[in-house]
């Protein structure tokens, strides 16, 4: 089956391009593993909750960005997809911020 359907996608430059991609995937994989160890190691220090939350979220955001940028190819995507994600990000941030600002006395809700 494989030989039968060799595609025209494997042109010279294209194949080199994919090889470059594969090297990036391996690098990202190593980075994600290291950051997973960092996340678990930091939690062992039992830092005060605000600091622990901040560190955990920063590491998670870095890991998530690596997955989105390289595995999901967002680093080089078309404008329309960025536009869709910008709208999504706006509403996502609103979703996250609304509960936080409404539970603290003296801000929006008294």
């Amino acid at each position, binding site marked *: *089956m*494989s030989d*039968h*359907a*060799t*595609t025209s*996608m*494997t042109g010279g430059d*294209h*194949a080199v391009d*994919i090889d470059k*991609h*594969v090297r990036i*995937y*391996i690098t*990202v*994989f190593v980075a*994600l*593993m290291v950051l*997973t160890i960092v*996340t*678990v190691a930091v*939690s062992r220090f039992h830092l005060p*909750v605000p600091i*622990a*939350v901040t560190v*955990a*979220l920063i*590491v*998670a955001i870095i*890991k*998530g960005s690596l*997955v*989105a940028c390289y*595995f*999901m190819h967002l680093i080089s995507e*078309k*404008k*329309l*997809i960025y536009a*869709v*994600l910008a*709208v*999504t990000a706006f*509403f*996502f941030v609103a*979703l*996250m911020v*609304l*509960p*936080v600002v409404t*539970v*603290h006395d003296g801000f929006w809700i008294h």
Partner: protein
Amino acid sequence: MDIPYTVEIRRDTGLTNGKIGIWLFLASEVMLFGALFASYILIRTGAPSWPRGDTMLDVPLATLNTIVLISSSVTMVMAWASLMRGRFGTFRIYMGGTILLGFVFLIVKYFEYSAHFHEGALPHTNNFLAIYYTLTGLHGLHVFGGMVVNAYFWGPGAKLWKTNPTWFTNRVEHSGLFWHFVDLVWIFLFPTLYLL
């Protein structure tokens, strides 16, 4: 009727229909998980006290599952890269590995859940467990859904490779986007539920 723009690029969007479709779907998924995360923040910040996740949950098993899911993202993207190189045999190996890793993730999750059930730690026990089961349960369903789609492309769906390899490659890329999203959600669930 055939679906238009599965291989050729639509001029106004600059994308295939499948690509824009999967991203719109993922946008809706962001809002679904976002609403539950917001609920988690609201319940936690409103609670007089909240347990640390590692006092109630199994961190080593969850760390193992994090490694499993990240590895499955790599095998998924390698499956797509194999098709881009025209190597169907390698694609089958990587895609098979992705499905297998998904299966390992769900088995580990089963052991976690069954240990909680034996201890009597059920969704109605407290708010922490309620949000834990809701978020990880929904995530587990996504893992299962992704496995079903990937299994289709590994098995019967792979026939398309013979007749239209570019379309098949695009389909695998799109199922990969979903799979990476599921990995991404776990990257946030793991520290926020288990470690804080």
